[in-house]
């Protein structure tokens, strides 16, 4: 016997739209089974995982805070991945953006001006973009693999941050804790609405998603990204340069990751610490693919993954279980989304061989 995936002649529009919902339903179903096996009541567990975080205003704000960096980073990554440049190092670009943006409030902490905040954001984007420029340069001119270089640079950024906050940037009045001085009020990203903590990072994320969506959908630049991602040779025939595209996509995604970094630090943490990200740069890769590399899809996917973070924290408290179920949930969700998408484009066919007439050794 052998199993074949056969391409469907035409793809159902209805199921293309339903697919993420089916995947979500399957995830909840199998997640419920997991809770039963853990000896917990599945209904109340699922309730505190998925519904409770959505019922209170303060937790909706937390959702926006967690979703903002995920969406910002994933939107940039979608441009990279669509153009066939595999930037895996957004986590590092996030950190370098945070560091570059923090120069003003940490080193020049006596300067207070309305210009501080916009300059911090610009510096954050520059920092992320320059750090992404390293793998871009290596790929465009020395033909190295950007997956490896961008990933390895993550650890460089993490250790650089660690050194900074323990050494030169340590808070002189901070009892020797490894952290910088807390930012002045003029360097803190304000809240979006008065009802809670969510800062303007979420606004940046939505704006970035809309702008990138518009670029991909309506402009020649977006067309260039799509063509070069599908076939470098066809792109060359169209007169597009794949080398310039490496620079463009890496710098853009680096800048957005850097903006996410400084927005997180300035809006949520308000100082630099040895660890400023629970892996946003890596989770954003999942977000980008869950959103099918479409910026508007990424907004939804970013909210869903932010919800799994919050829900995971909630069940830890209410059911006294470890943080592992969050990972399982994220894994289940990714698995079901990808398999639903596959089954929309392909159908499974079992090939049975008639043993009495088989002349060959059959399937390999």
């Amino acid at each position, binding site marked *: 016997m052998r199993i074949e995936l056969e391409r469907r002649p035409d793809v159902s529009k209805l199921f293309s739209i339903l697919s993420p919902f089916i995947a979500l339903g399957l995830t909840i179903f199998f997640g419920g089974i997991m809770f039963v096996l853990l000896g917990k009541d599945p209904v109340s567990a699922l309730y505190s995982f998925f519904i409770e975080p959505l019922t209170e205003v303060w937790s909706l704000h937390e959702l926006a805070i967690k979703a903002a960096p995920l969406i910002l980073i994933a939107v940039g990554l979608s441009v990279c991945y669509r153009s066939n440049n595999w930037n895996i190092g957004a986590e590092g670009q996030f950190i370098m953006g945070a560091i570059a943006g923090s120069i003003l409030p940490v080193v020049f902490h006596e300067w207070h001006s309305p210009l501080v905040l916009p300059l911090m954001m610009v510096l954050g984007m520059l920092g992320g973009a320059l750090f992404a420029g390293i793998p871009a340069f290596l790929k465009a001119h020395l033909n190295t693999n950007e997956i490896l270089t961008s990933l390895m640079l993550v650890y460089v950024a993490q250790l650089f941050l660690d050194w900074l906050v323990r050494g030169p940037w340590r808070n002189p009045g901070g009892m020797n804790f490894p952290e910088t001085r807390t930012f002045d009020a003029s360097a803190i990203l304000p809240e979006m609405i008065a009802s809670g903590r969510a800062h303007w990072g979420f606004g940046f994320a939505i704006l970035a998603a809309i702008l990138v969506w518009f670029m991909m959908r309506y402009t020649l630049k977006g067309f260039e990204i799509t063509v070069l991602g599908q076939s470098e*040779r066809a792109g060359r025939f169209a007169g597009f340069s794949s080398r310039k595209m490496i620079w463009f996509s890496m710098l853009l995604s680096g800048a957005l990751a850097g903006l996410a970094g400084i927005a997180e630090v300035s809006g949520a943490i308000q100082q630099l610490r040895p660890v400023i990200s629970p892996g946003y740069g890596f989770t954003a890769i999942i977000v980008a693919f869950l959103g099918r590399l479409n910026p508007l899809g990424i907004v939804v996917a970013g909210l869903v993954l932010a919800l799994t973070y919050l829900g995971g924290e909630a069940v830890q408290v209410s059911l006294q279980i470890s943080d592992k179920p969050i990972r399982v949930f994220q894994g289940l969700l990714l698995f079901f989304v990808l398999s639903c998408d596959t089954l929309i484009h392909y159908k499974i066919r079992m090939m049975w061989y008639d043993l009495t007439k088989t002349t060959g050794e059959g399937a390999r």
Partner: protein
Amino acid sequence: MPVEGEPANSSLLTVGQLTKLFGTFAACDGINLDIRPGEIHALLGENGAGKSTLVKMLFGVLAPSSGEIVWQGQPVRIASPSAARKLGIGMVFQHFSLFEALTVAENIALSMDPGVSLSKIAKEASDLSHAYGLPLDPHAHVADLSVGERQRIEIVRALLQNPKLIILDEPTSVLTPQEADRLFETLNKLKAEGRSVLYISHRLEEVQRICDRATVLRHGKVTGACDPRKETPSSLARMMVGSDVAHVSAEGTSAKGAVKLEANHLSASARTPFAVSLKNICLKVHAGEVLAIAGVAGNGQGELFDALSGEYPVASDDVIRISDKPVGTRGINARRLMGAGFVPEERHGHAAVSALSLSDNLILARSQSDRRAFLGGGFLGLIRQDAVKMAAKRISAAMDVRKSGENPPAGSLSGGNLQKFIVGRELDRQPTVLVVNQPTWGVDAGAASRIRQALVDLAKSGSAVLVISQDLDEIFEVATEIAVISEGKLSDIYPASELSREKIGLLMGGMYGKTETAETTHAH
């Protein structure tokens, strides 16, 4: 299932009502075919007629949806290529599956049962190849061999299994006329030994020359079974195409005008280890002229196209001129803006992106040359989809592109229809210079004659056309001037009327009219 009233057991292979469905599309629809021992049986058909699908089922690459295959009187199911080889079916694919970095013997060993020593294989392969007039050095690296020699490896590899039936898929499409003659001798030898050959081709004269019987396919169905020697090329073509193929008329070509495309001592080094470097190429194409460049695949055609199109600009401006302006270092879009159009060889992933719609594929080639019509919004570069779609529709209508739906993805079109669109995309601009690489490679006869006529008409209207082609029939149909490329060097340019096929064959082998012995053309 016996066919044509013959008892089944007198046939080597009988195929009854064989059907292969891809989704709802029947690539093969109730095919009946029988092959007798010791015959050369032709399988004729346009691209997309179902020939490849049929032989893939016979060789165990695809599983049939329904129908039966009877081998020497026994119904069989062929589950894999190795099962097919065990039965006694060998196959030589159109696209070779050889590792260039390995030697001939190593490549052959890969398809044999493990456990046979390499030296034994080398010995057997060498003996066999000489016995069949296909001399091969088993220790040569494949990368160093010509296309003809590579094909011999595939044939010897198939013969080592001692097959009763050998399937050859378009074997002469890559050979010089002399190399093809050798292949035919080998096929006749195989036939004399009582082996059968299933010969897939769309070259009618070859089929008439060597085949005993022919089965013709069209749209997945058998449309005729005949003795090709009793048919005329046009009656065979009619069975293949379903209607008379329009003859390309090159009458009334206008007088030569000014030089529109020129290469002056163009040299370019090879970009990859397996590419060919261009050596001192000089050519001139005048307005109203079709210059055809003949040559066996892999002799620098692609590299010449890349240099002329500007996909890979060259170091000096002066070596390439379009309308008398130096353009050597300029990119492809700068050359398009000077009125040049380009059609590369590979349709999928070079001339077109399969997953994108036809209108998107129109922007691919014309985003800069038609900037004013197709783009709006100033620096934003917004694509004006409605204008592009209108133009795509106009091109489809002008070139008779048959498609499913208004604006389908390029990958859903058959090769011929996509090629008509790709050529039409350039013609729509009325280019003053058109450079085309393999204009009808793998295209059905109907589309091919339409494309060739369009090229001739373009030249007649006063443009300069450069056609790079391996197909000699095509070259004689369209060309006013002919040159031959071999190992990156271009021969002199001759008026088409002064060249014979034999002369071109010699030039293809790198013989620039000095020692005209056929034998040396095989020495690579």
